[in-house]
């Protein structure tokens, strides 16, 4: 699990970074103080489970805003949890932007003036959530498979269409029908296995 901080008011020695590193390990906490490189980092590490702590406004007006970064992450994947912070109040975010945030599943919004421990709590909650999501677990499992295996046909549907693991991965990230139905089938299978009593939870 990686915690990616994209924020221009947080430095490597800020309390929030120090405490995140203590909790998640030095290598698992990454800081970007500019939005574009931060976004690029997230997009080039999609195979990694990630929680992103994102600033809404950057001092340099020419930088991509946090909301734009969020939109661009969402265009590629729904599997990264994003927590947005700002020193302004939530009421200062325009209606259009609020819609974007809510409709694209922003994990949380927190004022940057809140206690840093509160912000870290939200990150913890997002991390826990990631562990429980079937789609995230599936993604993690697929990414761990060797590339040649990921390129082979893996599943054939009733309609005689075949999908490789890489295609399934993409469809999970993009929340397309095949991805969703795969998740549902896995859940059904799990329930089915458990109810047949020939399998226990710790098997």
């Amino acid at each position, binding site marked *: 699990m990686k915690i990616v901080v994209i924020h221009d*008011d947080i430095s490597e*020695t800020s309390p929030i970074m120090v405490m995140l590193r203590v909790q998640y390990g030095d290598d698992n906490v990454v800081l970007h103080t500019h939005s574009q490189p931060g976004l690029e980092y997230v997009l080039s590490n999609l195979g990694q489970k990630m929680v992103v702590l994102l600033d809404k406004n950057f001092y340099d*007006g020419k930088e991509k805003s946090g909301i734009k970064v969020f939109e661009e992450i969402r265009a590629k994947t729904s599997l990264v949890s994003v927590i947005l912070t700002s*020193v*302004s109040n939530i009421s200062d975010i325009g209606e259009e932007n609020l819609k974007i945030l809510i409709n694209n599943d922003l994990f949380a919004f927190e004022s*940057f003036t809140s*206690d*840093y421990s509160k912000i870290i709590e939200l990150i913890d909650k997002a991390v826990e959530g990631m562990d429980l999501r079937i789609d995230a677990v599936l993604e993690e499992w697929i990414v761990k498979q060797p590339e040649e295996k990921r390129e082979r046909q893996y599943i054939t549907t009733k309609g005689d269409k075949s999908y490789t693991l890489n295609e399934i991965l993409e469809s999970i990230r993009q929340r397309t029908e095949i991805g969703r139905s795969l998740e549902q089938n896995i859940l059904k299978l799990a329930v089915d296995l458990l109810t047949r009593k020939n399998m226990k939870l710790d098997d």
Partner: protein
Amino acid sequence: MQKVLKNISKKLAPVSKKTQTNDQNLRWRFDVNTFRLLGRELITDRVTAIFELVKNCYDANATRVTVELIDVSSDKKENRKIVIRDNGTGMSFADIRDKWMVVGTNSKRVSQYSAPPFNRKLLGEKGVGRFAVDKLGERLVIHTKQKGEKNWLDVGINWDEYEARSTASTQGNQLSLFTEIDNAYAYVPGEIEDHGTTLQISNVNEIWTDLDVIRLYNELAKLLSPFHPVNPPFDIWLSSNEVPAYSNKQVRPDPIRFFSHFQEIGFDLATGEQETLQFEADKGEFVKIRIPIKRFGPVKFKIYYFNTPAKRRFLAAYKGGDERIDGVKIYRDGVITTPFAEYNAHPDHKKDILGIDKRLWRDIFTKVASREVIGILDITKENNPDIIDATNRQDFVDNLAYRELKEFIIQQLDAFGSAKKFETNLKRSIVERELIQAGVEANQFSAELTKVEKLLENPKPEVKNVFDSLKNQVTQLKNAISQSVSEQKKFQRDAERKEKILRSLVSLQEFASMIAHAVRTSIAKVKHLGEFFKLNFPKKEFERFYLLYATQIYDEMNTLLKVTDFMLSFASADKHYEDFNVRELLSELLTQSYETLFRNEQIDFEIDIKNDFILTTNKQAFKDVFQNLVSNSIKALRNTKEKKIKCSGYLDAESFIIYFSDNGVGIDKGDEEWIFGLFNTRTADIGGAGIGLYIVEMQIKSLNGTIQVVEPEYKPTGATFKITLPFNRE
């Protein structure tokens, strides 16, 4: 068509009675309730609905589309009909079954362009057509054929029947999510070469008034650029059997009339130059400056500006004219680009795509608003490949080219803003001049009267009476005129005062939000540092952070103090008016206060102020102007070897002129006005926030002066600012 329809209805009757396995029936593949709900969200207005359907014709490579409105003002729903006919590629049976009748889950298109050889940039939103039809009326017949097919395909769709079914299913408390209704279809023989699609909508939901028809025409006219012909053509015809002026009228963007100002800029590919507009206040005219073609590629831009009387004339001439003066739109190869292709009935809900109105609250008096201009910016696929329509159709892809284009457009509008301001001032002085002239003429008349009176020795009493009464009237007239002159002056002063108050209020609001942001950020940082102490002190493992954090708290507090000091100086800016000598103040400030700084930066500084000039204003505010200019120059000089700054000044007949120059990187051509805008900076990489020059301009304006970028003194590099402070500040 009528014949065909009769034909169809004959064929449909038996077909629709057949069972669902019948291959002569087409079935919707979705829940009708949800479908209609969705549609009502997407298409809120009938003009939008037709607008969307016509865009679809364009996407289908049609070269001609006719929108026919038949008895649409009739009270009887059954009489009202709308027919949209195009000569596009047409749809196959499979197209209708698998595309038209399936609500897509994937909103992204496979291709952004229509079929070859037209390769048109697609305008319509995929899947919106059927919602549009539903908005317009209850019954639809699609009559369509692709080239090479033998038969036309006719499909009938009855929305009212769905509605009845779904209502019935809800009342019965029985969930029937998917419709069980078959849509009848039939084949009608046609010519092998024929192609196209006709949508015949009957039982039209709403009554169309004449004004609605005009509104439809106006909106359709916006699809096409008035200046760049579409090739291959896309001709739109509107035909109404009730409004004679539109009985068979080709939709063409009307020539734009009644504007008060017009400017047009273009480019020259051979020299690689783009024209950009500037308004020269000294001459009172627009000039076109040539700059290297910008990142977004060469553009043609026509701007029609409507001042208040022009707008009044325009509105009187056109019904629904208010919707026509609606800002700048971008056309690609003669056709509107997708972000501008969304029709919105309410002007206040129109999206400010280019950010034209966002900047109004900064300065409502000199900025031009969307509803004062019609702008047509023509781009081409070939010349402007980096201006890309965003997939959500609401904007363009946010890249450097698009950002520069937006800045460029605003710069052109700002030139009109300067003209607007110039003319307001001119008008004021004309009124004043005319009054004074009237006063002079009244005096002359009175003198003439006295002369005539003297010539007539011993006039008759009745003549004398007339003279006396005339003289009396002239005196009254003179009094009235001189009173008017002073009233006019008073009114002008009053107007200016109000303008100033409003201006400072607006900038105060902006300022307050800026400061609040800075203060809250500092407080948040200090709070986090304090929280760390509270939770962790004196844990040994964090020992190395305690001193570091204490220092950070101290530094952050200093920043906070600076910010609040600045706030205080701003708050009390009006209180400390004093007389001071500009020459002395500048000499002292630039040679003494900045001596060390200039030495450390190895800047060769020269000051040459020729005359004394006494100014009454807030001294600190005046100093801030030069502090900002110096700090600007230092940034511009960072990569220059022999750094120079020069400040010179002299008195001319009407004003005190100050030149402030450096030999740094200079200001890009075309940026001369832009750099004074708030947050506009080209030195963001070294901490430039784009506030300095904004404050400078505000301060100079408050002295009734002007600041402008002129030809650099240290050619070929460097920048020179010219500040003009007029004597007469009334």
